[in-house]
Structure formats: C-alpha cells, structure tokens
C-alpha cells in the first residue's frame, strides 16, 4: 500500500513537473522565438527558391506542426494553472482561448477542408477540382486505385514508397522522383526476346549552315512524329517507298531503308537534287552526306538501329525553381524489376508478371457534386491602357437542383452547396482570353477561426485596458518596476 502510494506520489511529482514546464513562460518565449526564426527562414526560402520548397522545410514540415501543437498545449496549461479563475482573469483567458480556437480552426481546415483549382474554357463543363498534390493512379479490372506522392524539393533524397500495403492491385514501388523533370527520348535496339517489328531508327548529325549549328536528330519508323522531323528550315524523313522529287520545296532529306542499305535523296532550297546509297558493307555509321545546301551543311549518320524501340527517360531540368520549372516525374518499378518513367499528366502500361496494369501520374482530383459551365469570360481594362481593371466569368451551375446562372468576379465568389467558388485568374488567349481559373474552397474551420480571432482582439484590448487602469491607479504610489507578479500584473 505504502509502496503504491510512493509510486503514485512520485508519478504525481513527475506530472506536476511536466505541467510546470508546459505552463512556463520560458517555454512560451522559446516557442515564439522558434516560430519567428522558422517563419523568417521560410519567407527567404520562398524568395530564393519557390513556394513548395518553403512548404517542405517549414510550413508543412513535421517540426513546425509540433511547434504549433506545443504552443497550443502551453497556452492550455497556462490557462489551467490559473484555476480557480476570477473575474480579473477574463481578458487573459479570452485572448488565449482565442489563440487556441484559431489553432483548432486551422487544423480543422487543413484536415477536412478543400482547396483546389478548377479550370474551364468557354463552352466547356467541368466538375473536377485539381488539388495541390499529385498521385499515382492504377487502373486494373475497371477499378481505380490511387496513392499520393509526397513532394520533395530538388536535392533532397527521396525515400522509395511501396504500394503493397495500400491495397493496390499489384506491388509497385516508386523508387525515383524528380521534382522538375525534362523528358528525354532515346531509341534502343529491341531485345531479342521481344517479337521483332522491324522499325528502323537513324541518328543523324547536322552541322554547318548559315547559323553554324550542330544538332542531332532521331528518325524512327514507329510513329508519325518520328517519321518526319523538322530541324530549322530543313525537313528530314524516313520512307519505305522509292524516293522521288514530290515537288515540295527544299531543303529536305529523305532516307529509304532497304535490306542492308539505305538510299538517301536530298533537295536544296534552290532545287538542287542529290542522291546516294549507304551500304552496311561500307559501314553506315559515320558516313557523311553533302546535300549541297546553303552554308555547307554536312550530314552524318551517327547510328543505325534496324529494329528499335522508343524509351522515354526523365532527367532533372536545367531550371529547378520557380514558375518556369517543369513539373515532376516518378519512376515506378514492378515486382519483377520492370519499370517505367511517368511525367505529371502521363499514363503508361506496365507489364508485370503475366498481368498488365495501366498507370497514370496526375494531380489529385476531387469531383464536385455539381458541375460548372463557363458561358463567357470577360476582362475589362482601365481606359486607354492594357491593364486589367476587373475580370469576371458568367457561368451556369449544373446540379441536381436544376441549372442556375451566376456571375463570378474578383471579390465576389459564388456559394454553392457549402463550396465557395472564387475568380482566381485566367489564361491569356488570342484574340481574347477564354479560359477562366477558379479557386474552389470548402472550409469547415471558418467559424472557429473567426470566433477565435474575435476573442483574441477583444481579449488583448481588455488586457491592455485593464493594465492601464491599474497602472494609473497605482502610479501615485510609485510602485517599483522590478517585481512583476503575474497575477498582480493582470489584476485590477
């Protein structure tokens, strides 16, 4: 019995100590200083790099979240430590309760709220809101699975994510991530185990010309956009038919692929005609062609793949920050090591084992219970300038309750089924912009935040007013300023 009591009392002592730390002003000031430093750093990061980077390191970081939680606990404990509450505590309690409510409201918004963009062009109808997250989507047996891919800034190690625990139809691993990726197309010889398709590919280097360029181009029989390629003023193409002057103006160069040899024909802008044969015996790679174009253009065949397949790779873009930086890409690996790169907005089929799965990498989307049709988008300008003075969208809301016409403009949102739709921006167009971008929000934490804000302002006004009343009352007594008993300080 006695032992139990001792444990009990020591536990109590520990709890009391923890409580003492949690409700200390020292902790409050430490938290405030940590927040201040973190926030200042974040704004600098945002200025130097971009918003997602600042969010990754600060605003959406775990430590920042804990700092806010600690702040909430600190305020709560301080308020508790003042029990029994008196009338004079009211201003203090109001201000601090306000902060708690504001924090709680923000949490509710973040957890249960919706904040996304909806992009519609004139005449189109849209109901899907794009969120600020990207996800890997898999379609198998007519079912759609999705997994959010966390955003990681350039230069930070990406830890691979496996899908197996997330009830995906197949086991997949996202093992590589590039936050800003450029796609790079290359052609490889088709492996012997795959059925041959006889789709030849040629890599040609173009040097010289009036601009003294040096450029490599690929030609491939597998797809129309690779069969004919424009490089500067010149046109290059592959053909299975006999090359002939089709009357089109030069410069152009055609390759006719035959068994064991390639016939080429070139035409200059002046109409000069050159023809020749490259044979495998003499070696095709490295052969030079002089088509007689302006500026002594020299063409050399660098590589010849009789049966090639295309491969899209992604590598980090030269531009890694800011609005000009391209979007992200992920590398997905199947259970047998087969893999594919996916850029944002792309889809691909992955053969894994004996099944195949369609994968996609898209911004996360939420479908609204209604859809929006943009009837007309309008921009007004300040008279005599090209500066936009106001912009607005005339829309029709198509929902279960019938159609409803409305106008959404800057500062005048449309409220619909608990969602607010704001005019956010628009895309420039020629001769006039026809695509409107709305911001769609649902904020269940709004009430808490507003009420908390009200309490903060009210509480701090009362707090300072009561202090003023007290200090003028005690001024005549010339109270020494050294001692600040907390309770005395807030008391009347």
């Amino acid at each position, binding site marked *: 019995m006695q032992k139990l009591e001792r444990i009990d009392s020591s536990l109590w002592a520990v709890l009391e100590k923890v409580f003492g730390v949690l409700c200390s002003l020292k902790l409050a*000031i430490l938290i405030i200083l940590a927040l201040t430093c973190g926030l200042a750093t*974040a704004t600098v990061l945002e*200025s130097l790099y971009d918003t997602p980077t600042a969010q990754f390191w600060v605003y959406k970081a775990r430590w920042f979240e804990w700092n806010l939680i600690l702040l909430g606990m600190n305020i709560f404990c301080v308020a508790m430590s003042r029990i029994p509450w008196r009338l004079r505590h009211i201003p203090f309690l109001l201000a601090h309760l306000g902060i708690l409510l504001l924090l709680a409201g923000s949490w509710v918004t973040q957890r249960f709220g919706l904040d996304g963009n909806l992009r519609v062009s004139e005449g189109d109808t849209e109901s899907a809101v794009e969120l600020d997250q990207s996800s890997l989507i898999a379609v198998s047996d007519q079912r759609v699975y999705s997994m959010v891919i966390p955003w990681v800034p350039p230069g930070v190690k990406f830890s691979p994510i496996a899908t197996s625990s997330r009830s995906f139809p197949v086991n997949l691993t996202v093992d590589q991530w590039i936050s800003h990726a450029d796609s790079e197309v290359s052609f490889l010889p088709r492996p012997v185990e795959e059925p041959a398709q006889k789709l030849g590919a040629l890599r040609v280097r173009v040097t010289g010309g009036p601009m003294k360029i040096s450029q490599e181009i690929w030609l491939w029989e597998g797809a129309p956009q690779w069969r004919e390629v424009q490089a500067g003023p010149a046109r290059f193409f592959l053909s299975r038919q006999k090359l002939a002057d089709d009357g089109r103006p030069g410069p152009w160069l055609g390759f006719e692929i035959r068994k064991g040899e390639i016939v080429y024909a070139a035409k200059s802008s002046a109409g000069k005609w050159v023809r020749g044969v490259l044979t495998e015996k003499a070696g095709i790679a490295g052969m030079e062609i002089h088509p007689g174009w302006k500026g002594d253009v020299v063409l050399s065949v660098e590589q010849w793949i009789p049966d090639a397949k295309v491969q899209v790779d992604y590598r980090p873009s030269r531009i890694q920050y800011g609005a000009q930086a391209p979007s992200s890409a992920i590398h997905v690996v199947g259970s047998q090591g087969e893999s594919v790169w996916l850029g944002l907005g792309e889809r691909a089929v992955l053969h894994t084992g004996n099944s195949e799965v369609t994968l996609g990498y898209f911004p996360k989307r939420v479908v609204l219970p209604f859809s929006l049709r943009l009837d007309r988008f309008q921009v007004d300008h300040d008279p*005599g300038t090209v500066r936009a*003075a106001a912009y607005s969208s005339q829309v029709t809301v198509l929902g279960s309750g019938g159609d409803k016409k409305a106008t959404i403009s800057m500062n005048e949102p449309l409220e619909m089924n608990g969602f607010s739709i704001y005019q956010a921006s628009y895309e420039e167009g020629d001769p006039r912009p026809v695509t409107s971008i709305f911001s769609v929000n649902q904020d269940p934490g709004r009430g808490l935040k507003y009420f908390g804000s009200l309490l903060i302002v009210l509480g701090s006004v009362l707090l300072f007013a009561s202090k003023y009343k007290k200090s003028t009352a005690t001024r005549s007594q010339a109270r020494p300023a050294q001692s600040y008993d907390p309770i005395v300080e807030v008391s009347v």
Partner: protein
Amino acid sequence: MEFSASRFILSSWMMLLALSASPVFVRAAEAPAIAEVAAPHVGWSFREVGLTPTLSGGRLKPFDSFARETVLFQTGSMKFEKWDPVDLIFSWIAFPTYWESRPWIRVSREDVRRQLGLDEARTTFSPDELLKNSILAQYAEQLDRKDPGSLPPGANRNSPREQELRGVLDKISLFQGLVTGRSWLLLPKVGPEGWGHLLERIPEGVPIQKAFIQLLKAYQGGDRAEFEKISGELRRAVEGAIPGFDVAQRRQLEAETLYHRARPFLVAWIFYLISALAWGLSTVLADSKTLRTVKWVAYGTSAVAVTSHLLGFALRCYVAGRPPVTNMYESVVWVSLGAVLFAWILYGMQRQTILLSVAHFLGCFGLVAGDAAPAILDPALNPLVPVLRSNYWLTVHVLTITLGYAAFALTFGLANVALFQLARRTARQKIMAVNQLTYRAMQFGVVFIAAGTILGGIWADYSWGRFWGWDPKEVWALITLLCYLAILHGRYTNWMGQFGFALGSALSFMSVVMAWYGVNFILGVGLHSYGFSTGGTPWVLGFVAAELVYVSVTALFYYRRAKA
C-alpha cells in the same frame, strides 16, 4: 507611371525615328536665338493649361499631373531646374531641336551606360545621343520582335538593368511622342481604347486642335497675354468634348492641381521639424519664461504641421476617391501621420512631452523620406489593380495594419530615447517613465497589428477563399506580432530589465521594416505582388545598419558603466 504598358509606343519607335526629322507643328517657326527662348517663363500662368483634363495611366487627370509625372519619369526628379512642369512640356514641343541636343534624360544605372557605350561619368544625356546609339536601337528592335514569353536563356526580363534599358527606350519614345504631338492625349473619346492624340482626325477634335495650334504659336512667340487667354479656351474646348463632364469632376481636377501645387507634406515636415526641436527643448528647460515661449512655439508649429499633414491626406483621399494606402509612398505618409496621432493620444493620457518630440521627429523623417525619392516611392495617383477594388475589407485591413506600424514606429523612437538615457545613466525615474511609454505604444501596436492581420485573413477569405495561406506578407505581419509578443511576455517575467526591454523594443522594429518594405522590395514573392517594386534597398539597409550600430554603442556604454 506605366509607360512601359503602352507597348504601341515602343513598336512605333523605329517609325518615330524616321518621323523625328519632320515634327508636325513647329520646326519652321523656331527662332534663331533658341537658347534664350527656351528658358523658363517666369511669371506666366500655366493654371488653365494645367487644369485641362487629359486621360493617361487609365485615369482622368489634370494636364498638370500628367506634366509632373512625365517630368519625373524623364529626368528622375520632381522638378527640372527652375521649370514649371507644364512650361517644360510646352518647351519640348515648341523648341524640339534645342531639347534634342541638350543632355537632360536621366540614365541612372552605370552598367547600362557602360553597355550602351555612353559617357560613364555623366548621368544625363540628350535625346540625340540616345537616338543615334546603335546598341540601343538594336535592343529596341530585338525587344519589338520578341513576344513576352520567349527569352534568351539567362536573361531576366525584370532585372533592374533590363528595366532601366526599357525605361530609357520609353523615355525616348515618350519624348518623341510629346514632340510630335502623339503623346498629347487631349481629344476625348468614349470607349476602352482611350483618348485621341493631337494628330488624330476626328470631327470633335477640330476645335481642340485649332486652339492648341494657336496656343503653341503664342508660346513660341512669347506672347504671354495671348497664351493665357487661349489656354482657357483650350481647357473649355476639351471639357466641352467630354460627355457628361460636370462640376464635381471639375472640382476634383482642381483639387488634384491644388494638392500638387500646395505641397502640404512639405509644409508639414518643415513644421514637424521645428516642433520636434521645440518639444525636445521643453523637456530639458527648467520652468521659466523661456519654457513658456518654447511651449507656445511647440504648440503652434505642431498645429500647423498636423493640420497640413491631415489636409494633405484628406485632399489625396478626395482626389483618388479612396483611402491612399495602396503603395509605399502613401503608406509612408499614413504611418507618419499615425505615429503623430498615437503620440497625441498617449500625451493626453500621460502628459509626457518626450512623446511629442519623438513622434514629430518620426513624422518629419517619414515625410522627408517620402519626398526624397520620388523615383522609388512613386507619388503618382494610379488606378488600383483588380483585387484591390470595390472592397471595404481592403481599406479596413490595410489601415489597421499600418496603424500598427505607426504605433511600432513610435515604440521604436521611444526605445531609442530610453537606450540613450540608459547609456548616459540618466535618473532611473526618467528611464522608467520613457520605458513605460514605450510599453504603452507597443500595446497599441500589438492590438492593431493583431487585428489588422486577422482582418487581412478575413479579407483573404472573402476574396481568395482562404483565411491564411502562408503568404510572405502575412507571415511577416505574424513575425512582427510574435517579436513584440515575445518582448511583452519577457517584460512580464521581468527577465529583460529596463535595458533589455528598450533594446528589444528598438530591434523588433526591424521586423516591421521587413514586413513593410522588405517583403515588397527585397523578397518580392507572394500574393501582395501589386505592391512590389524595387529601389531604395541601400537606404533601408543603411537605416538598419545605423540602428544596429546605435544599439551596440549604447549597449557598450551601458554595460561598461554597469561594471564600473
């Protein structure tokens, strides 16, 4: 000013180059002794011409304002030599050959001068020099061809250097426009494309064009009486051609001209300076007859300064049709007014003259800073960007936040006084009194900045759909609040002592500087982009550095004496 917005001017630059050899009105009439004629017309009245309505920068304004903005844009200062702005503009169109060969267009960046192969030692150049500059011509052509999206790799369209280059081009084309008459937008037209210029052929424009040619002839001939008579006719002709032009609009134009001519903020800062000195003197003087005189001077000059400041502010509100708190210049004017008003409120509560001395110094400092750099703190009245229009919350949240800045400015001033006293080991009683005032001012600041930040959240919720989005401007307002809250809580526990409190209060103002200036001028990211600008960074950094030095020196003295 947004001359760069008028891309059509740029694209016709090359054409104007060819045209410049044959200005429309004038060359024939130019007298031989041109340098004598092209001198300021002292004693002439430009009132009527100045009141003539014109449409520029998206707003109906008196010609006087257009002339002022143009002169500021071209020469980089509010006043060019002894010229009245309207007089100067008339001189350009009347005697173009003289002005084409005189160096007066400012190219302020040295790297731009070097790039253009200009004389690096000079800052002003003649239009001729710039027009003949082949590098500049090449740049103009290149700029003209390029669509805004495609840029050579590594080039930053908005780098200060590019901006300056484009600025030089805009200056030349604007000058060309003024010389040829194409930038004189005096022919009223209804519709979004704006008013017509002097050469345009529209039936309504004929009487205006006739009056203008007469006016110009009178100007060239040096006929003062004729000029003043016809300038009235021109004004009436333009007014008559504006559909629905009424007395209220007329009055607004008059008020704007009055605002520019009377320079209320200049009057205010001069009197602030005198009153600040007088109030300062009154704190050290013993009770005597001199003290009474000084106090009378202090009260008198304060009254003039505050009245002038208030009237100027009210006039600007009336002219702009909105509370003027949308750019840096306007907020500087408002914050200095706020600091003075807070000081008077606190003075009413505590009767400490040091408050008034500090606040009037701040008022003077703010208005001088506002006037000193018109190229950075643009004093022109510009229309608002879409997000700022038609909104009640905008006004409320900006006014509240900036009042917070004002209270913190007062806090800052008082804290510096306390630091000085602490370093000098003034009587403890006096130090505590000043610190008490600092504390009060800080309380005002905390309430206003908290309320303002929250109101900003409400506004953001109302117009963007989110209460809080970690936008840099929001974040820095929060950081400011947190800095002062840390001090308030620190004072409460009594860890800081008198010196620590004064030190913290002074240094926390750096967060206000960052929130107010830094976010818009240094960071330059986020949703408050309509306030973004460049320039003045060395000055602001100099201010911060000076404060740091001051604080260190006082700390040195304080601790050395504390040890002794």
